[in-house]
């Protein structure tokens, strides 16, 4: 692949990579550094990329691995993979009924962001790659470096934890409304 074409295609992904980096690092400065480091590695390895294959998946794989390396270098805890909290959440906590469902569909974007933030890192990454980036299970397994079964388990548990969190928030709004309070103003 011509260097100029590779560069152009790779740089077109900067918004998406930054968004994913933000979910990994949960910090703007670290996310920017992570994306910058990802591009440095990508440009260095561009000769190994085969034209016509999945550049987006390739870049996300570099992002993921760079993130893990940075965490390791900084001596931080490894990504939590199977939080007990989420295990419990996945085991049949009461969910939503129709009125709640309506409220859920109106969930404020800020609530969705907050609920995503609360997910264990491994679940958040799997759900993000699947539902926002719309990668296939197979592609996610390649990016994250785990078996497909693990990917599906993380997606399943992540979605469930997200749903339960949002339902809880919706119930809280409903409770406040019943008590005469107002729903919090929509935040951007």
């Amino acid at each position, binding site marked *: 692949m011509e260097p100029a074409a590779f560069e152009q295609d790779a740089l077109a992904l900067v918004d998406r990579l930054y968004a994913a980096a933000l979910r990994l690092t949960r910090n703007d400065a670290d996310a920017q550094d992570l994306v910058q480091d990802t591009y440095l590695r990508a*440009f260095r390895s561009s000769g190994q990329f085969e034209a016509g294959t999945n550049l987006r998946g390739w870049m996300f794989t570099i992002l993921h691995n760079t993130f893990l390396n940075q965490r390791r270098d900084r001596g931080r805890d490894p990504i939590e993979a199977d939080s007990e909290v989420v295990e419990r959440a996945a085991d049949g906590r009461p969910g939503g009924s129709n009125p709640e469902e309506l409220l859920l569909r109106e969930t404020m974007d800020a609530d969705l962001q907050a609920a995503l933030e609360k997910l264990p890192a491994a679940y958040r990454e799997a759900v993000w790659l699947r539902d926002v980036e719309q990668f296939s299970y197979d592609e996610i397994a390649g990016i994250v470096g785990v078996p497909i079964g693990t990917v599906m388990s993380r997606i399943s548990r992540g979605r469930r934890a*997200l749903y339960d969190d949002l339902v809880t928030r919706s119930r809280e709004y409903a409770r406040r409304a019943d008590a005469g309070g107002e729903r919090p103003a929509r935040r951007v």
Partner: protein
Amino acid sequence: MASCRDIGQLVTRVADDEAAAAERGRVQEHVRACAPCHLQLHAERESRQLLRDRADLLVGHAPLGLRARCVATRSQAAPPVRRPVPLLSRASWPMALAATLVLAVAGSAFYGTVVNPSKAVAAQLALDHLKCFTLFEEPSGLDPTDVQARLNAKLGIDIVLPSGQAAGGLTLVGGRRCLYLDGSVAHLLYRRGAVQISLFVLPPGAKLSQTDLDVLGHSAVAFAKGGRTWVALARASHAEIDAIASIFGAVAH
């Protein structure tokens, strides 16, 4: 009827509309009789739809400047060009002469393929300057001795920073490692009154081909000392930044 355990991953595939008709049938039969699995399927579908509907909003846009930083890494990734340029340095040279290397920095060795490597490096440093003052400034100031120790421990950079009267009114308000040039650049943040000043300490071997540069409304001066290239950068006149660089040049090693 299949057990909940058997149906587990099929639920996710059904929620994703990726299950075959037979698999979908098994799941539907199961969830009709199993409330927890019914709820699980419902929860997965809801979350999936919610995220897909808001995907564009969630992705949003990267901050201004990040793309430029990423573009700048293109030149760093280029294979090093061998050029036997000695790293200046005669301690007795006055500051202005020592600044032979300067800004456009890591230039020749690292940016052989760039049209104007000095400008690219200066732009990168100016962006780091702006970003770091926004994000990492310590309002109460820092002890130069502590920062020296951290730089030594984390980057293996053994330098002495100006302190007390030798600092000429400069207050150290931040110190961090920049990912630039493989994460081997030390970035020190100073203030003097309202002026924000950055001091970058480049890794051994990184050289500059220009001494004075103006970029993004900032001035930069580079000098060599102790086998390294140092770059002082601020939104100030060249005379001011030159005077500030002299403070570092006189003390730091």
